[in-house]
């Protein structure tokens, strides 16, 4: 292990502790107490909230915006692969990856990075997006896209890009809990509360 591995590891620990703090705070605050008489099934509603309700044909934010939705999905896939590789790199050096695998991963992550760049440009160019955005939005996208690009470079040229890759990951991991990237946790919490709200009132799952 080199210094940059330790740096990445330390950032990971800080990230984990910070996100755990966010999580524990939500647990401590607990569910809202609801005194009204429940008419639905919370378990089924929660299951629906995390599955069918997320399908593109169930949300206008997906089916009315196919290009953006697809770009967002690919961007997230690229990020998930990059995160997975970050963990794998502690055990297997990219130099040991078979060429075919490196190429497949590169293509997938490159698609994600391209979509991330596209979304960043959209945020800068489209007025309604610009009005909605602030520095955190640009920075979060930029750091994540950069993370994907450095993952590719590290995969292809491990010796040359190892230090810079780990430095970028460190910055990203330290930034995540304070910027909007913490939606990695709050997304699940939001779906939970939504499932609970609609489930309590027998709105979800829908009955036709």
């Amino acid at each position, binding site marked *: 292990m080199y210094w940059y591995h330790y740096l990445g590891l330390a950032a990971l620990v800080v990230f984990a502790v910070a996100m755990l703090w966010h999580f524990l705070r939500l647990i401590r605050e607990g569910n809202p107490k609801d005194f009204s008489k429940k008419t639905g099934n919370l378990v089924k509603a929660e299951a629906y909230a995390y599955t069918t309700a997320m399908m593109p044909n169930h949300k206008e934010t997906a089916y009315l915006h196919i290009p953006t939705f697809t770009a967002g999905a690919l961007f997230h896939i690229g990020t998930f692969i990059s995160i997975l590789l970050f963990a794998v790199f502690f055990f297997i050096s990219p130099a040991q990856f078979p060429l075919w695998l490196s190429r497949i991963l590169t293509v997938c992550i490159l698609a994600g990075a391209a979509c991330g760049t596209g979304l960043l440009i959209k945020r800068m160019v489209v007025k309604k997006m610009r009005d909605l955005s602030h520095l955190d939005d640009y920075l979060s996208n930029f750091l994540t896209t950069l993370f994907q690009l450095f993952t590719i470079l590290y995969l292809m040229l491990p010796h040359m890009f190892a230090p810079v890759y780990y430095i970028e990951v460190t910055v990203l991991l330290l930034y995540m809990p304070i910027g909007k990237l913490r939606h990695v946790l709050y*997304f699940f919490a939001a779906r939970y509360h939504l499932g609970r709200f609609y489930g309590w009132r027998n709105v979800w799952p829908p009955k036709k």
Partner: protein
Amino acid sequence: MEKLTTEQIDKALHLLKMRPDSKLETHLNACVHCGLCAESCMYYKTLHDDRYMPARKVELVAALYRKYCTLIGRVAPFLVNARPLDEQMAEEMTDALFGACTMCGRCVKHCSIGVDIAYVVHFGRRMLAAMGLVPATLQATVDAALQTGNNMAIPTADFVDTIQWMEEDLQDECGSEARIPLNETDKNILYTLNPREPKFFPLSIAALAKIFFAAKESWTISTDMYDVTNYGLFSGNNEHAKSIAKRLHDEVFNKHCKILVLGECGHGSRANRWEGPNYLQHSYEFETITAVELINTYIREGRIKLDKSLNQELVTLHDPCNLVRNGGLESELRYTISQSVTHFKEMTPHGIDNFCCGGGGGQLAMSEYNERRIAIGKIKADQIRNTGAKVVVTPCHNCVDQLIQLNNIYKLNVKIKTIAEIVADALVLE
């Protein structure tokens, strides 16, 4: 806007800092600013003003949260858009949260993440209410309910006159046994009304009374407390909402009734069925159901007989947001309609995806925003026109009011009816 006092600001921030549970915390941290919710909101779709995107409404409250409740917001406010609560912020909040949101929750269902935008908007309204910044017209409606027991300040003598007039009409049609019993005790049902009914639409009371007569129901209306509405839900003042809800709750005991039936009013049903027990901080000791559920049960149990051939015109249904997307009555409504009319056509979209009529969230009470209300109503008007229907049914008197205005302005040439009216038209009296 007048300068905010420290006391006003402190009151609002106290609410924000209290955060009683994880729901608010979650929804103030979850928006990723994808901007995709814009097209789900009638305000943005019609007015094309970026400030009225659902995410921008959340952002107002979230910016305050970051400023006063997060470390990064205090240290680097420019990074995360942490904003202070000042006059400009209060003005923006009033305009967007009171003046450009019906709290319909349509954006919530469609949000990429699942942010409960309407919940955050309501919280923002609570902050404004704590600062005494509820729009004057909406506050006047709440005050009327608090002072007189009904939001239209109808004098009891006038109310009794109207009911007696409706009872005479009913008896002409159904015989002298048909009644609208006032202030009786130990009945099965305490029935409630939207004050718009005695004021403008008394025939809907007669329609429901006819259904009760056919079902041989034991019921009564209290002249002291018959108002199902609760505009405290929209003003954001939970103390006012609690007082209004408590009065209705207590009236069920005063009259020794078993079931509180909420008349055809979306927000009134929501305020009493779902929010009331939370305002009062205890479960209700009696059953609370909506008129829609009650009529549905009568049909399913065979307590009333319907002949749908008596309603031959093409009918469409407007789903009130508070009864359907926020109340779970989508299938109940459709069952009742299917038993009452011959020809029915759904709007596109409908059910939990339906668009608000434009009059929800207290908009009908806030004349300051009338122009916007009518403008966003164009979406509903187009939906109705596209069905080709001659009759629009909706179980909410607020929606009825807005739809009547849309009918006139957008020349839809339709009849607007409540569920009780369309069911009463199909009733077969034995």
